[in-house]
């Protein structure tokens, strides 16, 4: 606006611009509210995200190339080291599995005697993590496997340590995992030592146990496993160990901080549980807290 033109009159273009701004703001707010509430917009969003699937795939490319370069450039001595470590790990796992197999046989025999329902078998599928950064306030993970390779909505995602999360969104070639630490996530759990039932809440980057009764027998260092209640997560998978306990605001309950058992920050691959459908609901079993053999820790939805 040149200074000699006197005081600026209101230009029609300005008014139109403001009106357009208001219209777009209203549209944006409407979208935010609808998306936040969930509902029909979720389905439209799911369709629209198909558009961005190739984008995500391309964005994950550098990570994949990095991995393969890293693999290719590995030196002989490092490979030999890796090999030795893995061989030892395999030996230990094999020995543990053999012991578990005996326990599983015994368990099956006892169940047979009790006439209890057979637990569903479960097998796993390996899925690569697509290395891309999503919204940092949300705890999500994108996998490079989708409905094309048999991933289904609601599948439980684990790694060698324990439960990682669940699948909340499936696209043909990718799928999204809601991590345990997401603020939207809550998970029925039990203390492995004595079966006290608790709920593990995601607190954005960390895990928290809420509403622990003061009288309950829960101690720092206890390992917490899935309880199987609610039916989505099979019982007996490690979630984490209790790192700290403190009274909550009401002083009537305890809050616990949980150290996750799974590697929630980047790994390379995760396991998807595929549960063969039979329904049964045994009490929370407590398998060894390190690595449950998928075939024995079975439980179905």
């Amino acid at each position, binding site marked *: *606006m040149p200074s000699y033109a006197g005081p600026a009159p209101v230009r029609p273009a*300005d008014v139109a*611009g403001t009106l*357009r*701004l208001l219209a*777009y*703001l209203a*549209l*944006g*707010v*409407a*979208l*935010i509210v*609808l*998306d*936040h509430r969930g509902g029909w*917009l979720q389905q439209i*969003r799911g369709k*629209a*995200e198909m*558009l*961005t699937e190739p*984008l*995500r795939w*391309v*964005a*994950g490319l*550098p*990570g994949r190339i990095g991995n393969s370069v890293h693999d290719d450039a590995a030196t002989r001595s490092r490979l030999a080291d890796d090999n030795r470590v893995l061989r030892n790990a395999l030996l230990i796992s094999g020995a543990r599995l053999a012991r578990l197999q005996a326990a599983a046989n015994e368990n099956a025999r006892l169940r047979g005697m009790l006439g209890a329902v057979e637990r569903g078998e479960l097998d796993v599928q390996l899925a690569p993590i697509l*290395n*891309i*950064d*999503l*919204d*940092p*306030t*949300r705890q*999500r993970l994108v996998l490079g496997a989708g409905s094309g390779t048999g991933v289904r909505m609601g599948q439980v995602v684990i790694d060698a340590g324990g439960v990682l999360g669940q699948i909340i969104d499936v696209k043909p070639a990718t799928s*999204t995992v809601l991590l345990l630490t997401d*603020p939207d996530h809550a998970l029925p759990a039990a203390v492995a030592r004595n079966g006290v039932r608790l709920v593990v809440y995601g607190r*954005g980057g960390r895990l928290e146990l809420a509403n622990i009764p003061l009288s309950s027998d829960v101690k720092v260092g206890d390992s917490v496993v899935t309880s199987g209640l609610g039916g989505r997560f099979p019982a007996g998978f490690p979630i984490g160990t209790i790192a700290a306990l403190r009274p909550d605001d009401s002083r009537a309950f305890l809050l616990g901080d949980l150290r996750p058992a799974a590697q929630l*920050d*980047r790994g390379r691959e995760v396991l998807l549980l595929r549960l063969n459908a039979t329904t049964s609901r045994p009490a929370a079993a407590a398998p060894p807290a390190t690595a449950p053999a998928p075939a024995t820790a079975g439980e179905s939805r």
Partner: protein
Amino acid sequence: MSRWRHNWVMPLSVLAALLLGLLPLPDLLTPFRPYWLALVVAYWVIEKPDSAGLGFAFLCGLLADLAIGGVLGEQALRLTVMAFILDRFRARLRFFPLSQQALAIGVLLLNDRIVSAAIHLALGEPQLPASFWWAPILGALLWAPLYLLFDAIRLGRRAR
């Protein structure tokens, strides 16, 4: 012919900005990730106001929301606000030296952070850690090279 050719620069730059937003960074660097899309949208709103306006900013934001998996409409809202302010001050901004432009962009990016924080507050979503407030500074520093790069690409195309 040349017009048709340099029309491709705009969608391509938006695509590149989206990709840069998704690219994995080490955890330590994540807070400093500049808001590439905002820089690209700002450039086009300043330089080509007749084809890049509020609607363009809104659409870019919507795409980014879908790609990055946040609340749908959040970035659309943020970019629309930014585009509106830029549009109002475009006549002045265009004749600023690059250093002042960068400063203005830095302030706009800071404002964008505030808008984002307000949206998160209103929805009861978790806030970003405090370290993310450094990103606007990096964005401002990147403005000059980005501006020169885009100018070079566009003018190069035009000369053809």
